[in-house]
């Protein structure tokens, strides 16, 4: 029994990062209706950057968040400005193919630079744990969860209380209306994509102490993000957040109930189940 509770706890802890990751995807979709196929790869680039800073300069991944978030933020804005902007009006298939192209480039550039072998970051306190009753709490996981929560909260506050944030929300809710009141929609799109990317870049830093990763991990994160966002409702930030916790828990429980090496299968089967169970019209009311 306590095995399951442990799995749930671990699932919630990792779910925090998943939530942050998914919130980024949801933001991008909510504002621009673009499905960022390269989302997981952006996260992996964040992880490689964090890894490099750690290995070269000894910077703790939790401290390098600011750098990775900024770097991926800029990358996101560049991708949006240079590529996505040109196809905002294009049919959806074209948008998907474009982002697929970006994903392929990102994954394989990482492959060329870093090679296929998995990397890990071993922070000095990686093995620190503490107990509450029979449940073990991994220090890195707890810190990751806490920071992810704080960042997500920060994002919500930013969107709710700042002018820029309100502009983004307005454009997300009602693009035409926002245009009518003079919003520079292009700037909002670029910013939103950047912020969404920054979320996932930060998530990358947070994930680095927890898992080994390689270029192909990107696809796994992308699929997980899609899973979460489809469950939570495309475009709903709160839904993405809750969904992240849910997916983290189900993944963790799945690893306990099934052979751990089948973890990846679980996420794909989950995806199929979600696709079928959530008829298109009900995905958060947006499409």
């Amino acid at each position, binding site marked *: 029994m306590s095995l399951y509770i442990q799995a749930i706890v671990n699932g919630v802890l990792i779910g925090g990062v998943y939530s942050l990751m998914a919130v980024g995807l949801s933001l991008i979709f909510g504002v621009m209706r673009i499905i960022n196929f390269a989302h997981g790869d952006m996260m992996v680039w964040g992880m490689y950057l964090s890894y490099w800073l750690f290995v070269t300069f000894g910077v703790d991944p939790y401290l390098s968040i600011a750098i990775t978030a900024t770097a991926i933020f800029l990358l996101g804005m560049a991708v949006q400005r240079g590529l996505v902007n040109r196809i905002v009006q294009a049919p959806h298939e074209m948008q998907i193919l474009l982002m697929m192209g970006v994903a392929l480039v990102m994954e394989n550039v990482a492959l060329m630079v870093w090679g296929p072998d998995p990397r890990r970051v071993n922070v000095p306190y990686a093995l620190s744990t503490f107990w509450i009753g029979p449940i073990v709490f991994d220090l890195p996981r707890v810190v990751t969860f806490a920071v992810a929560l704080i960042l997500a909260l920060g994002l919500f506050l930013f969107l709710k209380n700042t002018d820029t944030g309100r502009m983004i929300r307005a454009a997300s809710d009602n693009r035409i209306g926002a245009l009518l009141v003079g919003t520079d929609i292009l700037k909002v799109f670029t910013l939103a994509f950047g912020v969404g990317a920054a979320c996932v870049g930060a998530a990358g830093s947070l994930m680095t102490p927890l898992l080994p990763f390689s270029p192909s991990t990107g696809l796994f994160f992308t699929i997980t993000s899609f899973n979460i966002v489809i469950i939570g409702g495309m475009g709903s930030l709160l839904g993405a957040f809750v969904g992240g916790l849910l997916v983290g828990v189900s993944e963790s429980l799945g690893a306990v109930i099934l052979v751990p090496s089948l973890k990846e299968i679980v996420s794909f089967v989950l995806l199929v189940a979600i696709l*079928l169970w959530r008829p298109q019209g009900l995905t958060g009311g947006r499409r």
Partner: protein
Amino acid sequence: MIGRAALGIAAAAGLLVLPFYVPSTWQNLLITTFYYAYLGQAWNLLGGYAGQLSLGHAAFFGFGAYVSVLLQMHLGISPWIGMFGGALLAAVFSQGVGYLGFRFGLRGFYFILLTLAAAEICRLVALHLSILGGYTGIFIPFKPNPWQYQFQGKIPYYFIALALLAFGSAVVWLVQRSKFGSYLVAIREDEDASEALGVDTFRYKMIAYGLSAALTALGGTFYAYYQFYLQPNTVLNINHSVDIMIRPIVGGSGTILGPVLGAFLLELLGEFSRTYFAASLAGLNVAIYGVLLIVVVLFLPRGVYPSLRGWLRRVGGSAE
């Protein structure tokens, strides 16, 4: 008209004698080109004509490869027969995935995700099944025997690949001129409007999917007996699905020449990068594919062939 027919015949004749006069590396290049062009035709039926983008065609390819190999290795059945077994199973699998997708109204992005998930599930399952070789893969023993789809030298494979391409192109050509083909294109353009005009969109999408899957599987059998090694991470992974779909997309989805042109272009590009980036960094090829996808989407959304045709028409003013 006569000029074009004569050109066609000359080209065909040229293709038939070509393999005897070129070195082995060229033969391999041509075989690879024909074979990917054929796979592109198969993918195109569903993706270009019916407008349902599939990111999971590697799965059908895998059915063709693995089923024929298993039938041969365990039951001694010739791959010439086994390949139809693979095609049949691939078609059945496609109907399963198609049913889930089309009955539940998954379109566009959601359908792509479904096809991707289906292929990945196949890959992960294959990695865990020892009968399919697991992580080590299956080595197919080389015992040349035309009845067992194994040949000495490259020339027989050249002709098989060419025959596959001719066959695949013929199938697409026949579909294109038929009521079935017209309906597929209508579905691509606007599914609801097609329904309103009496098109049973579910049925036609399923047929297209099945046909596309079966054809792709035949290509898988060819691959198995040309490369002699099957491993799920090469045969069934997403990169392979991308390999299959990128040629028709770049060349021109929804046309017959598109996949062929796309295959030639990408083969040339591959040769170019192999020659000048001799270190051949793993991943460079696929990174280039990514760049190509981006370029095509931004500048040549209908693919190289239709854009070329349009440009030639404007420049030359010739009638089609």
